[in-house]
């Protein structure tokens, strides 16, 4: 009896083992085998097939509409596959790409672009005005351009002058036009591929690499495009692989499975620098972080109180303790690399000054060390996302501690990162927070657009905020200066100076820091271009 049972159990195991073998045979990716340690053989200085481990997955690729998802991973790959008329340099200047030169009319309303000749898309289609004009025109349509319409809405029309010349006409002078054209939403697909059903999965551009294989959410592989107008790119192929876990990214880099990784945690920078064969690139980014102070909260309507908060928090100690020095204190509502930046000084850390300002404003220390004025207590709710920004909750906790020292009581309200945006984009009556830890990354690099998104008076109190002025800040002079900055075709810093100085003085934020972008790469490959706009571009190692 026992023997037959034995045989039966073996029979049961057999199909599962067979199935395992079958799955293994058909399930693996056909990509290049990147067995650890095999790279860089033959003494070649570079690895022909580069693997870039990204912190965010690419789920779909389409330069218009709601794609490419997700940010910034999708754009990083899109910049390899597509080219635009112009592109950002690592210093965030604008340089020619598919347009060779451009000029602005006297009134600043018409921009003329000369297109590069002899450029073809990956599918062989010739690049000319007919590839640009219909596509850019469609980007002005709210039904097509879902994610970046605010960058395109100042444009009224796009005109073909001849095969190599186009004109872009704006309603008002538009200082941010070149930034918009260097943005991911202005990457130009082959006209033949647009509108195809699988366009999001099989994009065709004129960039240095062409699409090879794409497994949404896990891996995208692109191959060198021999016909790229700047010549054949550096690598035979680049694989963008999603590795969400920071420890996993670093393990992949150190084991040789990946050559470039992004979003290196600040805690790991020193270890990586000490490890052999690895270089760390660290550049100040554009993403600014602060705690929005809501003007809907009675206690925060007094400017003295808001300024006191700025004196009470030691930003330097947050940078040292939480970010180990890998961030820079803000000196303006904009990050220094953003177009139009003007230095506005600093709020020095001084508990005495903060106490003095609060005393002057009539807030006396009351029961339990918490300041009060009449029946009102200086007790505020600080909303923070959990896991959306590096060390977000820890930063909120440090601020809570430091404000306690000047008699301000903070309750921390943690929100899941996926629900965070939704929780602060509400009509005025639904505001249920006093302070919000928030970070804004201008993917366009343009200060006027950023100030417009964060500080322009909201159009209506009864509807959801259109952009990010969740603290309901409003200053007419600031609005005017932002408008002037948006119209300034040259020297937007001059036009934006009054806005930045007024906002800095009004303190609708407790100003914190500008985050550094930290990328690491193997010394077997050239350093990738890291744009301050949080993009790591191994496709452009220069």
């Amino acid at each position, binding site marked *: 009896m*026992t023997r037959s*049972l034995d045989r039966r159990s073996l029979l049961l195991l057999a199909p599962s083992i067979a*199935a395992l073998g079958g799955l293994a045979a058909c399930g*693996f990716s056909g990509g290049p085998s990147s067995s650890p340690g095999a790279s860089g053989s033959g003494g070649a200085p570079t690895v022909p097939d580069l693997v870039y481990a990204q912190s965010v997955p690419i789920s779909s690729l389409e330069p218009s509409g709601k794609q490419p998802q997700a940010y910034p991973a999708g754009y990083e790959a899109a910049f390899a596959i597509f080219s635009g008329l112009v592109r950002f340099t690592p210093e965030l200047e604008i340089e020619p790409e598919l347009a060779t030169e451009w000029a602005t009319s006297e009134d600043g309303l018409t921009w003329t672009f000369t297109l590069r000749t002899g450029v073809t898309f990956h599918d062989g289609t010739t690049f000319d005005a007919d590839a640009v004009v219909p596509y850019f025109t469609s980007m002005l349509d709210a*039904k097509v351009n879902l*994610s970046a319409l605010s960058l395109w809405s100042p444009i009224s029309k796009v005109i073909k002058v001849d095969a190599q010349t186009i004109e872009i006409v704006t309603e008002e002078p538009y200082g941010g036009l070149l930034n918009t054209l260097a943005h991911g939403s202005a990457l130009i697909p082959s006209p033949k591929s647009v509108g195809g059903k699988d366009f999001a999965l099989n994009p065709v551009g004129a960039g240095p690499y062409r699409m090879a294989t794409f497994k949404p959410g*896990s891996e995208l592989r692109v191959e060198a495009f021999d016909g790229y107008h700047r010549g054949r790119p550096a690598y035979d192929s680049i694989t963008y692989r999603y590795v969400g876990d920071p420890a996993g990214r670093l393990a*992949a880099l150190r084991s040789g499975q990946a050559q470039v990784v992004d979003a290196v945690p600040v805690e790991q920078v020193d270890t990586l620098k000490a490890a052999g064969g690895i270089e760390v690139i660290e550049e100040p980014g554009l993403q600014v972080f602060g705690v929005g102070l809501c003007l809907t909260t009675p206690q925060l309507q007094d400017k003295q109180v808001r300024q006191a908060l700025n004196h009470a928090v030691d930003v330097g100690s947050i940078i040292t303790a939480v970010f180990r020095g890998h961030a820079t204190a803000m000196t303006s509502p904009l990050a220094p690399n953003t177009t139009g930046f003007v230095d506005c000084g600093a709020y020095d850390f001084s508990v005495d000054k903060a106490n003095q300002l609060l005393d002057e404003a009539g807030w006396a220390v009351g029961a339990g060390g918490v300041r009060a004025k009449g029946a009102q207590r200086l007790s505020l709710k600080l909303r923070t996302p959990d896991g959306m920004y590096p060390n977000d909750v820890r930063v909120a906790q440090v601020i809570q501690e430091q404000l306690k020292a000047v008699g301000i009581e903070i309750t921390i309200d943690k929100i899941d990162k996926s629900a965070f*945006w939704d929780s602060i984009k509400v009509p005025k009556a639904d505001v249920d927070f006093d302070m919000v830890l928030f970070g804004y990354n201008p993917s366009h690099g343009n200060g006027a657009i950023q100030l417009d998104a964060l500080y322009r008076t909201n159009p209506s109190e009864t509807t959801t905020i259109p952009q990010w002025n969740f603290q309901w800040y409003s200053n007419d002079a600031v609005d005017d200066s932002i408008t002037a900055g948006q119209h300034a075709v040259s020297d937007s810093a001059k036009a934006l100076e009054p806005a930045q100085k007024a906002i800095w003085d009004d303190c609708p934020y407790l100003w914190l820091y500008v985050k550094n972008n930290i990328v690491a790469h193997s010394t077997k490959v050239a350093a990738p271009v890291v744009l301050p706009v949080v993009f790591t571009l191994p496709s452009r190692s220069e």
Partner: protein
Amino acid sequence: MLRFVLGRLVRILVQVFCVVTLVFLLFRLAGGDPVTLLLGPDATPQAAAQLRHEMGLDRPQLVQYGDFLLHAVTGDLGESTSYSQPVTAVIVQALPPTLSLMLLSVVSAVVVGVAAGLLAAFRPHGWFARGSLLLWVALLAVPNFWLGMVLVQVFAVQLQWLPAIGYENPASLVLPATAIAARLVALIARLTRSTTIEVLGEEFIATARARGVSPARLVVVHALGPALPHVLTMIGLQAGYLLGGAVVVENLFSFPGMGSLLLSAVSGRDYPLMQGITIFFVGGFLIINLVTDLVASRIDPRIRLGAGA
């Protein structure tokens, strides 16, 4: 027998329906808007409203629920909002990696666990039995993600023998499968050891021994049979651990399977995808249990199926 299986299948359907309903409600109660997450920080409210309308999210929740059920009955789980592909297509891509990982974990856990358990039972007071007992307790106490991290440090970063991430070749399976299987090995080995020792104490073993059957043959032939159904039942019970472990371990190893997919669906508030994955996870769990019950009863006729089972 057939009636039993049909009855269990109907119950599985009802259970899946209940869990999916719960998931539908809970995910929506959790807050967060897929549209805001899809469109990014520069989108206008008009664009968000338009996309919300296109995705049918502006309809009353009850209508959305009814619509989802109607389509689900026909096998249409809707379109994933973050991948712009049918949910079934997205899931089908993620299934092979997870299935091969699960199978390898279970098969290797059974082989190693049963062998170790038998060895320990063979000489219950020998050095192997004593040492392995300690090891099993250690394996049970260690969380799988921690074990995974240690394995990566040793075998991928230091020794560079095995890949640290991804799913490229059979070698990619080794570390994640080890991280998942460790706990199962310990459980199976302990179970095999105790049931085998029990069986070895029974009278028919004494009879067999008296007839001159060799000790090795006694353990392998006479004791393994009674132990197997227990092992199978336990694998069924551990199916939840396997699926949960997949979420943690797959994320750790950037393994493109169902576990990673579930995480990305949750963080992107991809409702259709979350619902689809739930159906697969819950359905998978229940079916694994049904199958192990059937197999166990097949091996050991004393286990009765049917009324009240």
